[in-house]
């Protein structure tokens, strides 16, 4: 078991009214498993991913990550997990546009304090796997959407995390590029990574091991 989410709740106060975004949600994910989550905008998908990474704190409930309870009170501990154990892919890529592709990919390793030649060689290897090795010295801002997402995927796995969270990685991509991105995620699955992907694309939902629809803060298995 990579992650076990138990009875978490999250409410936001908007204009004095409490709105429940996550309602008593539980979920478990095994090693090498892909879970796809779909749902309408604002149903709580991104909040769920943010709770897993420690960016958002749940109101109650607990998350066991690799047999250890997440300590939301410790920024240092949560930052460490985010850096070493979780790779994140976003729909807006969140790349440092002025930096080169290689610099972007190496950033999590630099934060970790391990950016030696071994890691650099691994970065070149994964850039090769994602098909953008030739752009390693190109500024990220000059790449296309599909290429940027490949850089984001390479960056997400450079620290060899056990869990990858992909928040609508195909949102800004055409169908062909989306399929390529999903192929990359399948490749990561074969390498033993567990993946939670939030998507609206039918083709991606079909390829996941389990598919859930999120509605009013609850997960319904499809």
């Amino acid at each position: 078991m990579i992650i076990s989410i138990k009875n978490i709740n999250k409410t936001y106060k908007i204009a004095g009214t409490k709105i429940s975004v996550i309602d008593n949600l539980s979920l478990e994910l095994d090693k090498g498993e892909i879970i796809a989550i779909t749902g309408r905008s604002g149903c709580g998908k991104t909040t769920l991913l943010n709770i897993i990474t420690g960016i958002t704190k749940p109101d109650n409930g607990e998350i066991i990550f690799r047999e250890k309870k997440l300590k939301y009170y410790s920024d240092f501990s949560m930052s460490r997990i985010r850096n070493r154990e979780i790779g994140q892919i976003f729909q807006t890529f969140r790349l440092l546009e002025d930096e080169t592709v290689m610099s972007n990919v190496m950033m999590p390793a630099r934060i970790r304090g391990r950016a030696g030649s071994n890691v650099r060689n691994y970065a070149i290897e994964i850039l090769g796997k994602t098909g953008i090795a030739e752009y390693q010295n190109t500024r990220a801002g000059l790449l296309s959407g599909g290429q940027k997402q490949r850089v984001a995927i390479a960056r997400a796995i450079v620290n060899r995390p056990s869990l990858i969270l992909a928040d609508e990685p195909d949102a800004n991509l055409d169908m062909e590029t989306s399929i390529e991105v999903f192929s990359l995620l399948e490749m990561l699955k074969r390498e033993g990574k567990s993946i939670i992907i939030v998507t609206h694309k039918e083709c991606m939902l079909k390829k996941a091991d389990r598919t859930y629809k999120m509605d009013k803060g609850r997960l319904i298995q499809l």
Partner: protein
Amino acid sequence: MLSKLYLIKKELAGGKFISFIVFCVILLSVSAIVSFNILSDNFNNYIKNNFASAIPPDEIKVKPGESKSLFLFSTGTGRELNAAAISKITNFDGVKQVDPILAVTVPTSATIYFFTFQYKTDLVLAGASYKFVEKDLKNTEMKKAWLKGTYGFKNSNDTGVPVLVPKTLIDSYNNGLASANGLPEIVPQKMSGLRFKLSFGKSSVNAVDGAYDWSSVVSGYTDRINVMGLVIPLKCAEEINKKFNKTGRYMFAMVKVKDHKNFEYVRSQIKKMGFVVETGDNLSSEIVKLKKTVNAFITLMISLVSLLAVITTALCSITAVWGRIDYYRILRTLGASKFFIALTILIKFALMGFLASWCGIFLIGFSKAYILQSITIPGIKLSLDISAATAATILTAGSIIPVAASLPAIIRMFSVKLDKN
């Protein structure tokens, strides 16, 4: 570690324009503060060199009235400074404190033994209060002895009288007697603890009934009482005079007045009593006031410049941090802790402050010759030298101030939400 240093280097290189502004602000502030400090030092030195004298401000030295006899010798017709006169002066409006120096009016001599060498001399003894000589007494043991009036020698039952040696006497010995007679010079700081014999009631010219010897010990030296003799506790001087049925006669008294307004009044009143008043060319209260005002103005200017530098740096740092908020957000998402990001910002501002301060000091040093040539202030010899201690203070403050000024930006950064896509 090297990887983390890379991130610090990246932070230093980020937001170049704002960093340049912060650098310029600190550079100008440091240059202004250093200039004000130099101006203050030069002004204070000018006051010290041109107006200071041995008599501190607001102090009047009162001496007995001078004899008006037509002959070489007289029995003393001048106005005598006695207990009644001291009491009257003490009661004048505006008088803060009166410290009389009592003369021992019996023949006195001292015998100093130094190995096989024995030196005997007649001398004058003066009694001074503890308050007046407190600062000159070498240590606590000597202070206690002065208060008590006797000093107990270690490892014996002997007691002695503590004495202070006037600096004038030491100088006279070193520059006259010692060199003339091939004797070693005396180091004033090393005199404390020296033991010798005092004889009361006998000198080379006279001896009276009841004369006796008493041990004595040097308790330090003083430059406040310029007599060619020794200073003993006031209590002892009174007792010795009493033993030989002599009335108290004061050599002089130091009168402290409350402020300059009373200074002139007290001085004229004492003069009217027939005493000799000595104020010398002392640092008058008006000049002290001017010095205080100028220094307060300079301190105010330094504070204002520092405050402006802090505010400008704080605003610049907030703008700089805000301009890079997306970068910090990405770093946080990728696992950088808030502490690490804060540390990189603090290091950036500390380094920038240090470099700007160093450049400020360098700038003043570099333009020293030009400034000295172009600025001439009548009566004041300008010196633009920056001492090592001042430079260290400026470098430290120059590094700390930007760090402190960047704290609001860091606090603001801490509150940024990371869940923005």
